[in-house]
């Protein structure tokens, strides 16, 4: 029972940390209306940016906000240089473009900054938190809490004036222009915000498993989270994250010893497949409103 509880709690916390990586995906989809398959590499890049600053002696409490500023600017630059040309093009072009960006960053950033895993110490400590018989990973506990806060903040953000405009842009680009909303700026802001959340995800994951290119592999669970939760739903990120985390922890916890490991990715892929077959828009995703 303690084993099950441990898998459950740690799985849920890991899931919340997945939510953190997935949040950027949803932010962009909810405001620009395009999927961002580069989110994994953006998280990795964010972790590298913070690590560079920390390793050259900048204290953490400056490095993280500075990293956020850098990644916000990075998002704006991506919009200006790449996405602005995609206006009026089919969505598949944007999908391919972001996928290309993912591959480029995966190679480029570790290539330039070193591919051996670097440690990023947040001062959280590695001793597990012990609750009765259950051992809880301290980094995941902190990460899960921060994920909850950030998801709450995003929910509030989309109720603001700017947030409403971003949602309008995701609904219809042309009518946004027609009422004077700058679609380009809105997309830029959404990529910038995704960059900011990527800093949080990158720093937490980086401290949990070290900063190297494998951070970009977070794209895979993040995609599972958004597909399960609903690609444009902020609460969906939370629920999807917890479900993906729990299933990806409990099932391998019992199965791995029989099949020799590696079932977590299988579980994640199955989640993606089953969701698309049973409920293509996810748990909380919006259905397209069709009126005749």
């Amino acid at each position, binding site marked *: 029972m303690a084993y099950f509880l441990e898998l459950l709690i740690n799985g849920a916390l890991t899931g919340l940390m997945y939510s953190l990586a997935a949040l950027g995906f949803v932010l962009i989809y909810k405001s620009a209306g395009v999927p961002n398959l580069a989110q994994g590499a953006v998280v990795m890049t964010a972790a590298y940016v913070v690590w560079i600053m920390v390793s050259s002696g900048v204290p953490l409490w400056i490095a993280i906000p500075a990293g956020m500023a850098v990644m916000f600017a990075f998002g704006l630059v991506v919009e200006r240089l790449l996405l602005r040309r995609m206006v009026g093009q089919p969505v598949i072009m944007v999908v391919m473009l972001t996928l290309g960006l993912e591959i480029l960053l995966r190679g480029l950033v570790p290539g330039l900054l070193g591919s051996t895993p670097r440690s990023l110490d947040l001062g959280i400590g590695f001793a597990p938190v012990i609750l009765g018989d259950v051992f809880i990973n301290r980094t995941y506990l902190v990460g899960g809490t921060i994920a909850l806060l950030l998801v709450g903040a995003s929910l509030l953000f989309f109720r603001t*004036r700017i947030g409403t405009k971003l*949602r309008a842009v995701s*609904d219809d680009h*042309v009518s946004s*222009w*027609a*009422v*004077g*909303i700058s679609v380009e700026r809105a997309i830029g802001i959404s990529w910038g915000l995704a960059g900011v959340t990527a800093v949080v995800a990158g720093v937490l994951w980086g401290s949990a498993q070290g900063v190297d290119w494998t951070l970009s592999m977070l794209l895979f669970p993040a995609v599972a989270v958004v597909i399960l939760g609903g690609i444009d739903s902020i609460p969906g990120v939370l629920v999807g994250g917890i479900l993906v985390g729990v299933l990806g922890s409990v099932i391998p916890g019992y199965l791995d010893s029989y099949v020799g490991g590696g079932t977590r990715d299988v579980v994640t892929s199955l989640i993606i497949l089953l969701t698309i077959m049973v409920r293509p828009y996810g748990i909380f995703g919006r259905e397209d409103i069709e009126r005749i």
Partner: protein
Amino acid sequence: MSALTLENVEVIYDKVFLAIKGVSLEVGKGEMVALLGSNGAGKSTTLKAISGLLGPERGLVTRGDVTWDGQSLLGRGAPERVASGLVHVLEGRRIFGHLTPDENLIAAWRGGNSGRFNELRDQVYTYFPRLKERIKSKAGYLSGGEQQMLAIGRALMTEPRLIMLDEPSLGLSPLLVQEIFGIIQEINAREHLSVLLVEQNAAATLDIVSRAYLIENGQIVMSGSAEVLKANPDVQDFYLGGAGKVDYRNVKHYRRRKRWLA
């Protein structure tokens, strides 16, 4: 003095398709003008050339000039044109379906959280009281007429001096068309707002505008005051569904040519 002037405007899509071929028209301050024509005549293209929405469809103004308040609009982005007081209500309503009516209005408002916003919003709800009843539901679930009202209300939130309406009567019952046209007239009269109304429904349109242009195959073929156009026999036959009773025994078996094509 006219507020909006199009001089010999030519629009080409995809670098090959010539959609409008030298359209010239004028809309004066506070004037209500219609642009009539059938499907594919170039009405929507003309509006998009004015509002700057040709880009996403890979269209380009290749000749001529669009001036607003004496300044050329070409080369300015759509949001900038909206800020200068032009607004375009798109064909097919195109409201933000996943937002509530209220959020639709918020999205179109440029400024901050000020009293002016509340004033404008109350004004919109006075024109369209029906929207207020549906304030909580997603705009995508509103009826066609309500969506059209919302689209117009949303455009009014940009504080325009010229509103361009692309087929507001599309898919609406005659009664609703009358209601919406009545409101457009009221807005035009009360706020001294210029209106450029693009329509296929010539009969209803010519009753409310002061002047009209007739566009066919990307060219303006006729223009004049609403009365003159209404009295024109060709307009009557081709756009108003015939003026008097038709004696079907005497209907000739060839299609009459439009006189202006000769």
